[in-house]
């Protein structure tokens, strides 16, 4: 792939320093365009893309020696070339590239070592070291506060705006339906929402609330508001922050594994995501807000990282904070701090040291506490569907629970396949050219079909909360429409219902729920992945809850009519309340969510934090495990990994086993028919030769050898550093011309007096590159890449340099083995 414009642009672009330190802004590349449409490596030896760094000045103390030390890993070495002051350009990476974990970690270690050494010298330095240690905790506190506050605001605004589709509150337009009727005395037992302060649109416009005309007016207003909200959401996303669309979790997973996406966690993305998330959820579309809340929390963390030098300058440390922020996101979404931490550990994070565990927990607790004090639901609950029943379950019920697990697994596998096919269509065909129209059409379709059925008209969380509810005498909803007992003495203890026959209301609810199930299953496939913020926790849980409740009611009626069957005899006698359909709904929700996302531990913990008790752990675990096994039988990836693969992100899956028996020599470049590896010799090359070599190839780095004949490895030098140093030397250093020798050794060789002065570049060379021998099995090599976070690894044979393996080569190789298209790996 030729990209000459890029190469020449890089020289100009290097010396335009950005005005602020904000390195989530994009690089100012004058004259160069980032062309990702053809990142196909046609010259087969290309070992990756470009690592053009933004020109952010680094102010880390003794950065030059620490840079050298970081590269060498052997301790601070004396710099050979006094002109190599902290050059602007080292420290940040270019967009859509992978960071160098090893370098970032060693940079941080050096910084920490220096602070510790200095702290013995004076009190001020001691205070500095103490504050440095506490900066992490302070940052976690701030992240928790900010994310909790934002989540509370989002909840309140979403509830209000969603109710706006139905009517207005006359005593204060900022009240939603429930709060409008809060102080009213007109609510009745049967109609708990009716009060004169809340007027539906039909009442406002026509004055009546009954009759077909009012129904049609309400219907039309509902569709109008839904379309308006969806339109506002998609135009705001398109105009201000295109990165705010989608769920965000696949991209955050990739970012946490070392990828850079500039602007993805920036302030505009945060603002737009918050505002449009409320709009998208309120427009009645079948999406949830949990995934986007994780994105919002990570944006908050990224923005707050700029306050602390320790996290601003170091990409690896920042990713620790982002891992904690992902935990905060789930914690505020479900009110489950422990579940959030486990979610971050299991689903999102790549490297999760123990220190991060403790800090994530702290941040998640702070966020949950902040959310509780804002009290968005008016009852000190964090989530809308907190479950309060503690009815016991019987071992025989494990059979229907496992059945629900199988259903969840099947649904998960089916959903992933359908959604990926639809998203692929969106990527490649004409469907992707009209995002605004697509959103409007889907919103219209959803509104038109959802309004007549009261179970699809209500929002996802309300539906789930109603389905999780255990019916008692105090409920008057349709779902609790059982036949009244003939004799009042038959009522059980307190207000719990004995088992009763289903009444009219329940039968209506059942068929309405069945229709809702079919509708939700189909509409979520086309909704997830649209160009508005969309999550899929709530829709999946809704599908599972409906299925679970249907099965639960079925079991309950079966037990009522057949008390003398063998399976019911022992435990379900006449008059006892033995089967709780609400529990079945909960288990169904967990099963479906587990089938789609393949979460295991985190899902069970989230569900039991929702219920507040350990009674239901066994059914939940049984259903979750079954659903994971069934879904894995159809495809190994969850929905987030499938989206990562669809986008071609360079994500080296940490859980995948590499089962092929290839060796390093099979994957390395250059292959047999390719030209030889492009190397630099430690002395003997001139500046002109080096420049020609660098410009004629696209590799992101070059190994340095002793000589072309011996091919003994000295080190590895990055393209970017070479270009910066040569450019800088030409401009600043006396006498460096194209004929000057480039020297990577410690002492320059003796030269005649009239020769131009040599250019010493030992300081930019990494003296300890990672190597494997050519007979190293690929699974060990892949393991090395995963565990150390490498970008490239050199291959030696009998001590001589043979070739190079990059992360992209590995990903392509794995794609080839799995019979996937290796060209689908777009980034590196």
């Amino acid at each position, binding site marked *: 792939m030729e990209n000459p414009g890029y190469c020449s642009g890089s020289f100009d672009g290097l010396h335009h320093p950005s*005005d602020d330190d*904000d390195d989530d*802004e*994009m690089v*100012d590349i*004058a*004259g160069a365009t*980032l062309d*990702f449409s053809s990142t196909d490596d046609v010259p087969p030896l290309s070992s990756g893309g470009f690592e053009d760094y933004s020109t952010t000045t680094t102010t880390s103390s003794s950065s030059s020696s620490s840079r050298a030390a970081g590269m060498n890993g052997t301790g601070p070495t004396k710099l050979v070339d006094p002109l190599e002051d902290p050059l602007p350009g080292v420290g940040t990476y270019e967009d859509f590239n992978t960071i160098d974990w090893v370098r970032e970690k060693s940079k941080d270690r050096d910084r920490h070592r220096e602070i510790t050494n200095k702290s013995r010298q004076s009190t001020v330095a001691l205070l500095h070291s103490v504050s440095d240690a506490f900066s992490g905790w302070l940052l976690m506190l701030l992240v928790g*506060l*900010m994310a*909790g*506050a934002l989540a*509370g*605001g989002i909840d*309140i605004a979403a509830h*209000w705006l969603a109710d706006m589709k139905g009517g207005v509150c006359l005593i*204060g337009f*900022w009240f939603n339906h429930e709060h409008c009727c*809060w*102080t*009213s*005395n007109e*609510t*009745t*037992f049967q109609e*708990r929402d009716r009060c004169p302060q809340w007027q539906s649109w039909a009442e406002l416009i026509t004055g009546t609330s009954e009759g077909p005309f009012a129904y049609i007016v309400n219907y039309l207003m509902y569709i109008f508001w839904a379309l308006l909200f969806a339109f*506002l959401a998609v*135009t705001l996303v*398109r105009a*201000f*922050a*295109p*990165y705010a*669309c989608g769920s965000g979790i696949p991209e955050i997973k990739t970012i946490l594994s070392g990828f850079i996406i500039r*602007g993805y966690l920036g302030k*505009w993305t945060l603002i737009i995501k918050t*505002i449009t998330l*409320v709009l998208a959820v309120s427009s009645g579309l079948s999406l949830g807000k949990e995934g986007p809340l994780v994105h919002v929390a990570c944006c908050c963390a990224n923005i*707050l990282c*700029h*306050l602390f030098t320790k996290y601003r300058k170091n990409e690896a440390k920042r990713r620790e904070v982002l891992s904690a922020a992902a935990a905060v996101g789930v914690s505020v979404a479900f009110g489950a701090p422990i579940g959030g931490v486990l979610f971050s550990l299991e689903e999102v994070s790549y490297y999760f040291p123990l220190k991060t565990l403790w800090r994530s927990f702290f941040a998640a607790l702070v966020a949950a506490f*902040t959310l509780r*004090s804002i*009290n968005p639901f*008016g009852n*000190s609950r964090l989530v809308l569907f907190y479950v309060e029943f503690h009815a016991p379950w019987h071992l025989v019920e494990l059979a229907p629970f496992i059945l629900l697990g199988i259903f969840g697994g099947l649904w998960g596998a089916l959903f992933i396949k359908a959604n990926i096919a639809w998203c*692929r269509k*969106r*990527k490649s065909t004409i469907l*992707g050219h009209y*995002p605004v129209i697509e959103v409007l059409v889907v919103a219209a379709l959803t509104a038109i079909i959802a309004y007549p059925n009261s179970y699809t008209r209500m929002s996802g969380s309300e539906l789930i909360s109603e389905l999780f509810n255990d019916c008692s*005498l*105090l409920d008057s909803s349709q779902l609790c429409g059982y036949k009244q007992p003939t004799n009042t003495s038959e009522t059980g203890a*307190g*207000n719990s219902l004995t088992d009763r026959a289903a009444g009219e209301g329940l039968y209506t609810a059942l068929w309405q729920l069945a229709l809702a199930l079919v509708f939700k299953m189909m509409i979520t496939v086309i909704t997830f992945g649209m*160009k508005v913020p969309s999550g899929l926790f709530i829709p999946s849980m809704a599908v599972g809850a409906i299925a679970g409740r249907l099965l639960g009611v079925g079991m309950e009626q079966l037990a009522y009519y057949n008390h003398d069957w063998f399976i019911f005899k022992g435990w379900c006698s006449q008059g006892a309340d033995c089967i709780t359909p609400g529990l079945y709904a909960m288990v169904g929700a967990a099963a479906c969510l587990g089938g789609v996302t393949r979460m295991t531990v985190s899902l069970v913990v989230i569900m039991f934090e929702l219920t507040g008790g350990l009674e239901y752990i066994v059914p939940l675990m049984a259903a979750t495990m079954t659903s994971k096994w069934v879904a894995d039988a159809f495809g190994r990836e969850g929905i987030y990994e499938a*989206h990562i693969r669809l*986008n*071609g992100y360079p994500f080296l899956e940490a859980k995948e086993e590499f089962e092929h028996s290839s060796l390093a020599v099979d994957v390395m470049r250059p292959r047999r028919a390719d030209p030889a590896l492009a190397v630099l010799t430690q002395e003997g090359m001139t500046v002109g030769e080096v420049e020609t070599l660098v410009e004629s190839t696209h590799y992101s780095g070059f190994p340095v050898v002793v000589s072309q004949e011996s091919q003994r490895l000295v080190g590895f030098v990055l393209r970017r550093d070479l270009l910066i140093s040569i450019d800088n030397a030409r401009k600043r250093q006396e006498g460096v011309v194209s004929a000057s020798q480039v020297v990577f050794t410690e002492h320059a060789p003796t030269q005649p007096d009239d020769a131009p002065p040599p250019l010493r570049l030992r300081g930019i060379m990494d003296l300890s590159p990672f190597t494997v021998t050519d007979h190293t099995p690929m699974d060990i090599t892949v393991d090395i890449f995963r565990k150390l976070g490498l970008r490239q690894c050199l291959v030696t044979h009998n001590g001589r340099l043979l070739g190079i393996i990059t992360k992209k080569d590995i990903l392509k190789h794995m794609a080839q083995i799995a019979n996937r298209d290796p060209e689908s790996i777009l980034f590196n």
Partner: protein
Amino acid sequence: MKSVFVVEVLSLFCFVLLSQVTAKNSEDIRCKCICPPYRDIEGQIYNQNVSLKDCNCLHVVEPMPVDGKDVEAYCLRCECKYEERSSDTIKVTIIIYLSILGLLLLYMVYLTLLEPMLKRRLFGHSQLIQSDDDVGDQQPFANAHNVLSRSHSRPNMLNKVEHAQQRWRRQVQEQRKSVFDRHVVLS
């Protein structure tokens, strides 16, 4: 930039604290008692704003639909819950949300509609300076402000703001290209 964030964070923190400390409006507490159907009496819901210690059936259920002996049986079936809310928090949140949404919409309208009009008006007065930075984009966001900025000489601060806004616009364009046009990210 940093100071802005610090101020933002502090203001959020204060908002959170304030919402806890706001005086409890007497209308913001209530005791809600739900009484199921009993014999031939229909189910009823009773609301009153009493404090926590008075939140029980005897204080809230008025008028009592049953007579002396049955009151205890009736009250046993009623369930009373004490609830609190903060209407000020709700009001403030909604107003903040609507104002931010309104500002964003106005800004969007300004960028898409008003700026090209201003640009066209200035076309007649000054020369259109082509910028070589924006290669081949006809989007209204990009060129207009560039032209506007070069037609007058402005003090440094304003130049900086213009420059930052130009850069932000270019960023958004790049993002839009990757997400919407080429479908490279976030498909």
